[in-house]
Structure formats: structure tokens, C-alpha cells
């Protein structure tokens, strides 16, 4: 190790990013530029990608401060649709609250909320066709809820109980729901990105009409899979939508460690010559509009779109995380783009299609549905209390047919179970 330094040359220095606020700091987001709603042009969905680079550096916004939907990106959704959207978002939030608490009560091992980010998965999904395929990360429970996947099925998976169709094989929230167009979630970040491209390429190569959409966090964009996916997508003009959920934190690391100090994540698209949009992720209508635009683009064989959803992770990364250790407690409230549920509600109220009473009523209904689902799910068991899957299911699905070595191991396990005096029973509820 030399550290040599030639006196006629300046010394080099290593820049290590640092977030603006740490625990104890007062928070001031004044430097976050929030462009006016309605001010962003909406290009033709088939326009060449180099015609609207600016859209990668601004924020597409529809809901203005007065609660009106304005500008060319206004998707002009009918009030029923807006109310459904609001309800789905409220449901996501209620579900998160309840399951977070269930984990804290020791009923399962793990949970992840998406508080503050509900608009992204919910509105994005509603802008897709029901048979379009989604390749989510772990923070898009909103897709399942927007597609009316039974809450109790989600909870069964979270509890790894008898009702869990994944047979307790996966960590909580790593859902899979093929009949709801929801790909099996991986614990390994960003692997779903090239898979979504492959699915979209397959669809295109078959002359199908279905497109694919995928999501990852801003931190996850650093993985090589992200690059492989975007490269394949630009080469074959795959009908796929890449969503980057920029909630500004990746566990304890702020977005500067994924490159946010130098440019936006939507700008990555420019590097590949594909469409890039940067969207106010807490504006459900902007998310809807951008997704609908990208879907149309994909269906026109005009290629992929990358959408950066600028948002804020209002809570911890997961139940294993304590954000007060590394960021200021003031951030979630000071965050200038507000709360997506409150904003959509305000819009509906403003246009005369909603009021506080109806909202409170909806909240009660949603809470009741979640509570009922929880009760039904818990009747199927909770993690760690008893044996919910027949032991031998441990060997199902490694291969389509079980080879001899797995059959032997399975038999060995059953013999152990006999010899052990069935310790599973000891914790039976």
C-alpha cells in the first residue's frame, strides 16, 4: 500500500455520500423541488424516447395543492374507480398495520409494510389489464389487494399455516399468486427484473397481447440484474414496464448510495435509449396515468418504459429494522409529497364525490374485513405453534418427481419424527 502522492498534482479524495439528516437532526426538505401539478407535458405514447428526456428529471404530477386533478396527465377516472382505488389503498394500510402487530405479538417471524407507498402498487395495478403479468418486489402487497386476492390467503402465507398454499416454505410476505398475475417473490433483490423481460419477450414472440410489469426499490437498482434487464429490454423492445420505487431508503442506506446524488433513477432509462418518466409516487393519479401511458406504449410495440416513483418509506424497512437508529424521526412528517391516501381522499372530497363520514365508514369496513380475515387465518394456525404442514411436504416441489435421494431423506425425517417423541406437539396451540 503506497498512498503515493506527486506534489505537482492535487490530492485525490474519496467522496462518501451522507444523508442530510441523522437521528436528532431537525428536518428541512426545502431543497426538494416539487414542480407544479399539471405542468409536465404528456408525449404521444409511441414517441421516440429521446423526445422527452426532461420527463426523467421532473415529477409528473396530477393532483394539485387544492385537490384538483389537472394537466395533460390527468387520467380522468370516473369517481367509482377513484373510490375503488382509495379503498384498496386504505385496505393496504389497514392490512399492514394489523400484520405488523401480529408479528410483534409473536404470531409470525417477519413482516414488511409499505406505508406511504400505497399508491404505487395499487394505482399502477389498476392501470394494467387484469391479465398483464406482475413481477413485484416484497413491497407491492398493493398489487394483490388491487386484484382482489383474498386477504385470508395473504395472511395464511404470513402465518405459514395450514391454509398457506406455499406450504410454509417461504418467508412471510413472499407471496405467489399465478391466477392473479403475480409472480413468486424472491428474497434475492432484483432477480425479477430480467424475468419480467423474459416473460414480456415470450409474450411478444408468441404474438400475445399481455405485457409485463416489474418493481424494485431504488437501492436494488444497483444490482447487475437491473442492467441485464434494461439491456435485454432495449435490444428486443420488450413490452415491459420497469418501476423503480424510490422511497429514498434501503434499510439504513439512503438513496445516495444508489447514485441519487448525481441524477435521478428515471435518468437510467436515457442511458439505454428507452422511455423514462419520473412520477410523484404519492399522487395516485399520476402513478395511474404514467402506468397507463407505459402500458399503451408497450402494447404499441414501442418498447419498455422505466418509471421512477418518487416517494418516502414512512416506516422501518421491516419488522427487523429500527429506523430511529439511522435517520431523523422528523423525516416522515416533514416529507413534502404528503400522504397518498390523504391526497386521493382530498381529491374525491374536492370534486364532491366523498366526505369525511364516508371515509370514516370505509375505514371501519376495511378494518373489519381485515379483522375478519385475520380471525379466519388464525384459525388455520400461526407460525411456531404446532405443525401446520404434514412434515413430508418439506420435500415436495424440489423437483417435479422426487428422486431416490430425496425419498430416502424424507423417510429419514419421518423416522426422526418418530424417534423424537414428536416435539412439534409440545407447542401446539
Amino acid at each position: 500500500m503506497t498512498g503515493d502522492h506527486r506534489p505537482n498534482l492535487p490530492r485525490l479524495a474519496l467522496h462518501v455520500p451522507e444523508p442530510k439528516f441523522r437521528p436528532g437532526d431537525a428536518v428541512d426538505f426545502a431543497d426538494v423541488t416539487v414542480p407544479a401539478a399539471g405542468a409536465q407535458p404528456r408525449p404521444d405514447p409511441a414517441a421516440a424516447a429521446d423526445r422527452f428526456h426532461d420527463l426523467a428529471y421532473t415529477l409528473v404530477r396530477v393532483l394539485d395543492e387544492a385537490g384538483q386533478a389537472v394537466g395533460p396527465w390527468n387520467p380522468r377516472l370516473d369517481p367509482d374507480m377513484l373510490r375503488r382505488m382509495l379503498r384498496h389503498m386504505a385496505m393496504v394500510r389497514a392490512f399492514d398495520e394489523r400484520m405488523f402487530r401480529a408479528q410483534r405479538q409473536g404470531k409470525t417471524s417477519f413482516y414488511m409494510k409499505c406505508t406511504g407507498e400505497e399508491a404505487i402498487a395499487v394505482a399502477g395495478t389498476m392501470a394494467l389489464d387484469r391479465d398483464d403479468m406482475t413481477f413485484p418486489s416484497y413491497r407491492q402487497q398493493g398489487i394483490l389487494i388491487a386484484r382482489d386476492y383474498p386477504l385470508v390467503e395473504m395472511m395464511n402465507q404470513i402465518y405459514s399455516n395450514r391454509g398457506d398454499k406455499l406450504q410454509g416454505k417461504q418467508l412471510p410476505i413472499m407471496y405467489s399468486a399465478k391466477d392473479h398475475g403475480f409472480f413468486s417473490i424472491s428474497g434475492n433483490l432484483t432477480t425479477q427484473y430480467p424475468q419480467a423481460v423474459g416473460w414480456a419477450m415470450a409474450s411478444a414472440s408468441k404474438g400475445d397481447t399481455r405485457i409485463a410489469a416489474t418493481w424494485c426499490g431504488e437501492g436494488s437498482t444497483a444490482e447487475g440484474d437491473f442492467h441485464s434487464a434494461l439491456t435485454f429490454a432495449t435490444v428486443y423492445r420488450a413490452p415491459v414496464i420497469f418501476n423503480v420505487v424510490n422511497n429514498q431508503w434501503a434499510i439504513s442506506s439512503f438513496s445516495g448510495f444508489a447514485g441519487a446524488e448525481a441524477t435521478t433513477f428515471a435518468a437510467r432509462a436515457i442511458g439505454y435509449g428507452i422511455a423514462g418518466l419520473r412520477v410523484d409516487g404519492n399522487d395516485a393519479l399520476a402513478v395511474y396515468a404514467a402506468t397507463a401511458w407505459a402500458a399503451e406504449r408497450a402494447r404499441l410495440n414501442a418498447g419498455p418504459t422505466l418509471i421512477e416513483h418518487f416517494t418516502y418509506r414512512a416506516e422501518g424497512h421491516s419488522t427487523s429494522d429500527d429506523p430511529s437508529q439511522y435517520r431523523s424521526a422528523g423525516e416522515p412528517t416533514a416529507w413534502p409529497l404528503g400522504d397518498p391516501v390523504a391526497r386521493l381522499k382530498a381529491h374525491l372530497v374536492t370534486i364532491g364525490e366523498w366526505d369525511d363520514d364516508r371515509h370514516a365508514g370505509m375505514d371501519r369496513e376495511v378494518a373489519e374485513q381485515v379483522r375478519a380475515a385475520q380471525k379466519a387465518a388464525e384459525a388455520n394456525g400461526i407460525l411456531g405453534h404446532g405443525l401446520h404442514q404434514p412434515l413430508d411436504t418439506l420435500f415436495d416441489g424440489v423437483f417435479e418427481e422426487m428422486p431416490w435421494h430425496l425419498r430416502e431423506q424424507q423417510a429419514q425425517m419421518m423416522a426422526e419424527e418418530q424417534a423424537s417423541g414428536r416435539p412439534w406437539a409440545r407447542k401446539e396451540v
Partner: protein
Amino acid sequence: MARMNMIQAINSAMDVMMARDAGVIVMGEDVGYFGGVFRATAGLQSKYGKTRVFDTPITECGIIGVAVGMGAYGLRPVPEIQFADYIYPALDQLVSEAARLRYRSGGEFIAPITVRSPFGGGIFGGQTHSQSPEGIFTHVSGIKTVIPSTPYDAKGLLIAAIEDNDPVLFFEPKRIYNGPFDGNWDKPAQNWSKHAGGEVPEDYYRIELGKAKVVREGGDLTILAYGTMVHVVTATVEAAGVDAEILDLRTLVPLDIDAIEASVRKTGRCMIVHEATRTGGFGAELSALVQERCFHHLEAPVERVTGFDTPYPHSLEWAYFPGPVRIGQALKKIMQD
């Protein structure tokens, strides 16, 4: 019956399967117009079109990731990794995704992909065109590993692999693409025309995965080998006049344990030969299995003959390669023990 070398047999397997199943797709670096750096996919693009046979960007991670997505859609992709030495960037997609998908999704999604990749040395390819990484994959649950040793087997096994609903790694011993190799690098090369394994039906047939082949019956000892080593072992045994029973494993996972046990119980001795580095290679697993299951039948220690625990060297390639001398020495030792 036609005469084919191993490249032609592999090509024929893909051709047959593409004709039978519109879901079969061939993709990889240089596999399209050009037909692959070893020509294994020659002619397929002009026959089946660019949307079913195409070149890809140079990202092995992407190639496998995209193939997994295509498999989830319902296609049956046959991606090529140009050299097995370049499979590592794809490891996460293979291990964490292809191999786990059926399990983690409760059977909702599967990855019926067949990853073809030329492997092994003996062509002066240096350390990045010679590796035998099969031992990494045999340790991963949820992946099958297949290695042919003749054109006939290559075609039948590749067809079975493509039809299989689980991810299969199909490693092609490139040293014997053009002809069997007896390990004598300083003697003239052979071709497949005079070898029975070079007779290959033009049409569809399959060789079930998980079945070993008895290449030579014998009573003195059992030799387990696969790929190029089958031929090196056979020639060495003939030269040494040892009455060995030689098993060509053909599929490493799932393994044909019955064939192995039956043979070792009969002979009482077992030798394992592979080109991969020794420590933690598939030979270790074979050795462990044999002594676990045939302990009381063994008259001598199970012997491993392998490549050394070094990178594959360039100029000293033949010192590294487990050739006739190394195998011959081991034969002497095991028969004396």
C-alpha cells in the same frame, strides 16, 4: 441412422424439439445467425426464425434471468452459456431462481429451462475456456446435471432435458465434440465415424435422465466416469488389461445409485474419474455414497482420479489433465490394495 459428431447430434436434438414444440426457444451469445462458436445451433435460425433462435446481449445473468421469465410464461427455453467458465455471472439466477422457483411458489411457477454449456479442457483454452464446474451445481438442490459422452447419448439426453419440467444443466464435453479422446494428446485425433456412439437416429428419441450406462462389463473393479473421461478410462483400462466395469453416469443429479451399488457390490473396488478439481468435486460425493452404501463390500479404498486443485493451466495442460498415466497409476494402486 446417420453418422453424427457430437455437435451435429446436439444440433439435431434442438432441431427435433423445435419442430415438435413451438415453445422451444434457443438463445445465447452468437447462437443466432452465426450458429454458435462451436456451431451447435447452426441452421436453426434460418429454419425456425429470429424470434425462436436469437443472439443475446453478453450478460449471462440476463440470459438465464430472461430464460426463467420465458419459462414462467410457458415456453421451454434452451439458453447457451458459451463456455462453462462464464456461467458464474448467472449463478444467482440459476441457484436462487431457476432451482428454487417450483419450491418457493408451491408449484405455481416452474423453470423448465435447459442450459447448454461446453465444458472441460484439453483444447489449450487456458484457465477460462477449460473449467468443469459441475460440482458447484450438483450441490444445489433443484437442478439436474447431465453430461453426455457420445453423440447418441447427447441427442437422447438433450431431448429428455428439454422435455423435463425442471431446470437442467447440460454440460457438453467440448474435447469430444469431434471425436472420442483416449487421453493421448500426442497421438492423432479420432473422429466419431468409427465409434458406435456416432450412430444417431435423425428423429426423436430420448434417453431417460438419471440412468447410467455400463460401458464395459468387468469383475475387478468399478470405474465411475462421465463425459470425456469415459473414453480416457476405457482406453486406459484396455491398455492395462484390467477387467474393469466402467459406468458412464450420464446424469449426475439425479444419480443412478442402483447401478453404482450393484456394480461395486459385485467388484468390491471403486474408482472415480473426473477432470474437475479434486477438493469438493462430484467425485467426493460419489466416494462418500459408495463407502456409505457398500462399506462391507469394499476391498480397497474408493479411489479418486481428478484434475488438480489449481486453475486450469495453459502450457502445462497435459500435466493437469487426468490422463492415462494418472489413471493407470491409480489402477495399479487400487488393484494392489
